[in-house]
């Protein structure tokens, strides 16, 4: 997916310099390629399925130190590390992995942080199997890539747990004010980068916690909130101000903020608008968008109702429509809230599911039912307007469509009914329209996404930059973060020019 044709000259140079360092040469000699290839991939320790479905605690426990170092030994330290090409932000993967091999965990974390500000998060949620690990040369040789994601997580957790978080020295204040709109991974990255350059950064966030999808969407069992909190605390220590409960476009428009002295802007407002299928019965009680369902449970902590006031309906027979990460998170949440049947209803086959491989595996272990090549066509309600059943239709796969995946085609006469009492619609999100609607002249594309110059992330309005899901539609954390880094560099340039 994310393979870049070629790495930039600068990245190549950086990799080469590190590769040639004497300690690396020496380390390579300690074990032959053959011996390294024989080491089995170290398993991520995880809580047993029957235990973890009873609570919201994290599923993966993280590699132990010895296992991490053993895993690092597997890396061949290639002269031409293909893995880096698969990483959207070109992390110097061999360098950090080799630092783990020699036990320099904190240095390894800092190495990653040269290009990725959120390794504890990316180590947990990146789809490594289609990025770095997909291209790993060891995979080509043995079929089993280095567990780069697990190692990334290991060093980031080590750094955090040992209180080794490094606070860089900050240059003298530039006197320039920057407004970052949206506290998702894109916005948080911009904020951190610009604070480090001495600019005065304020993040405006509509919700009452910072983190975007990481706080309201991705559940605790996959990404503990404490990790996000550590990242946000770090930003605050860098001097970033976070203004929560502030909806730009409502509480103040972008132009109002300009009048208050902000000179540059970054829009990272995400893809917050849930899509529905527009089929009959979709407004019955018991049919949620994934955003609503996950927000109730994660942000509002409905899993701890009535200690927390926000309720969530608990289904016995729950159907989740979709096959991405959002669908996996929703269905596994339903299981944890006590569903007897927790079902994925997906219109294509397992092969086309866009969810991370690990999430699919975890879901299978947890007893989630998968119904492939199936779509709902209509919901049926009871006399109180609550959903009680769902009429579905079977699909078959036809020719590949624009995304390269085979297009599902309905099979006539294949309708059947499934009893359900809760449905979660997880078929994607559209860009949040609030800022485009309230910012005169801002150029948007056909789907409402903000248009940018991809080399700088600049929008058509001077001093206004954008990135993440508001630009890309639904994408990934690492792409949002990568956009943030690029935008921050451009904003810094812009402010210097000004």
């Amino acid at each position, binding site marked *: 997916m994310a393979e870049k044709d070629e790495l930039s000259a600068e990245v190549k140079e950086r990799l080469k310099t590190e590769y040639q360092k004497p300690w690396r040469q020496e380390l390579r000699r300690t074990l032959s390629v053959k011996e390294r290839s024989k080491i089995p991939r170290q398993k991520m320790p995880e809580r047993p399925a029957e235990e973890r479905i009873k609570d919201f605690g994290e599923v993966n426990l993280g590699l132990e130190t010895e296992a991490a170092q053993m895993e690092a030994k597997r890396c061949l330290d290639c002269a031409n590390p293909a893995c880096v090409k698969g990483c959207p932000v070109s992390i110097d993967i061999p360098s950090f992995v080799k630092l783990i091999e020699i036990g320099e965990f904190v240095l390894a974390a800092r190495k990653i942080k040269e290009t990725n500000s959120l390794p504890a998060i990316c180590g947990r949620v990146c789809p490594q199997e289609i990025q770095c690990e997909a291209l790993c040369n060891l995979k080509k040789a043995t079929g089993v890539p280095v567990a780069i994601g697990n190692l990334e997580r290991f060093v980031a957790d080590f750094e955090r747990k040992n209180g080794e978080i490094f606070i860089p020295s900050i240059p003298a204040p530039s006197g320039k004010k920057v407004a970052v709109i949206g506290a998702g991974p894109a916005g948080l990255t911009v904020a951190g980068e610009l604070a480090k350059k001495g600019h005065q950064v304020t993040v405006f966030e*509509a*919700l*009452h916690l910072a983190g975007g999808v990481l706080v309201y969407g991705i559940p605790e069992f996959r990404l503990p909130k404490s990790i996000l909190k550590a990242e946000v605390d770090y930003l605050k220590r860098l001097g970033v101000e976070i203004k929560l*409960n*502030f*909806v730009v476009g*409502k*509480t*103040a428009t972008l132009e109002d903020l300009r009048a208050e002295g902000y000179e540059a802007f970054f829009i990272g407002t995400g893809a*917050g*608008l*849930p899509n*529905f299928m*527009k089929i009959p019965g*979709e*407004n019955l*009680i*018991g049919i*949620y*968008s994934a*955003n*609503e369902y996950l*927000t*109730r449970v994660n942000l*509002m902590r409905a899993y701890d*109702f*009535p*200690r*927390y*006031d*926000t*309720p969530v*309906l608990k289904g016995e027979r729950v159907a989740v429509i979709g096959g991405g990460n959002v669908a996996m998170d929703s269905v596994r949440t339903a299981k944890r809230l006590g569903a007897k049947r927790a079902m994925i209803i997906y219109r294509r086959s397992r092969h086309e599911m866009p969810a991370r491989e690990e999430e699919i595996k975890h879901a299978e272990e947890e007893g989630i039912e998968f119904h492939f090549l199936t779509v709902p066509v209509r919901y049926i309600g009871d006399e*109180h*307007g609550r959903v009680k059943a769902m009429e579905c239709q079977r699909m078959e796969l036809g020719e590949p469509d624009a995304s390269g995946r085979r297009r599902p085609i309905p099979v006539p006469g294949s309708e059947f009914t499934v009893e359900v009492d809760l449905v979660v619609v997880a078929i994607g999100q559209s860009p*949040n*329209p*609030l800022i485009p609607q309230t910012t005169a002249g801002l150029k948007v594309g056909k789907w409402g996404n903000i248009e940018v110059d991809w080399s700088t992330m600049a929008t058509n309005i001077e001093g206004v930059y954008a990135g993440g899901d508001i630009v890309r539609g639904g994408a990934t954390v690492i792409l949002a973060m990568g956009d943030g880094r690029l935008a921050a560099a451009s904003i810094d340039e812009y402010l210097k020019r000004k």
Partner: protein
Amino acid sequence: MAKIVQKKKLVPNIYLLEVEAPEVAKKARPGQFVILMPDEFGERIPLTIADWDIKRGTVTSVFMVVGTSTAKLAGVRPGDELPVYVGPLGRPSEIDYFGTVLCAGGCFGLGAIFPLARAYKQAGNRVVTFLDVRARYLLYWEEKLRAVSDEVHIISRDDQNLPQEYISWRLKNLLEQGRQVDRVHVVGCTYLMSSCAEATRPYKIKTIVSLNPIMLDGTGMCGACRVSVGEATRFACVDGPDFDGHLVDWNELYARRKAYLEEETHSLCHWQARVYEEEAI
């Protein structure tokens, strides 16, 4: 964090809440609302902006105690802070010169209708205000509303000697008598809004209702607030809360507002039990 400046019981079960929120005050327009959370454990609930004061930097709402969040709010004191207070949300009401505008409010809507009546008046309309109260002693803000209305009618049901009536009946009577009304705007409970919309339907008088579905984020992110209007599904927090009352699917709204009846009762009992326990200590 938003500091509470004033909390006052207006009439039994209905309170005024004034909160320090200079940014919200600066932007507030009639018909908009805020979302607040009474405490860290609370729900995010919407309340209509009933008044604001840019100089004081405050925003005022009127709320009726119906469940846990509003019961918690009834217990706040000046100086307390609300962990969430965000706004102004929703589209402002369309204010223009229409001719004669009939503003109708019930329960918390007596407060919520005030900025609308004021704005319609300022736009040059003749403002006729209908106030629905179960009994006279539940009437509040009468003077405030008189000051911005050309006529005020109070419809209450406590005088056993008079025929019992509701706003919608009075409205129907008025229209049957041939009274010219160019627009109706109703704020209050769902019943009040739907019945007024039914009363004006035969006369094709544009009737704006300020819908109150269950909300969560209030920024268009979740779809909890979806309502069927005409053929379309709309998100009340960003597309509304004002809609054409003749196009709203009222049965759906009634049902969806009751989605959590069981949980709400449970929540209130749980919280009350805790409060009594704490008081006992």
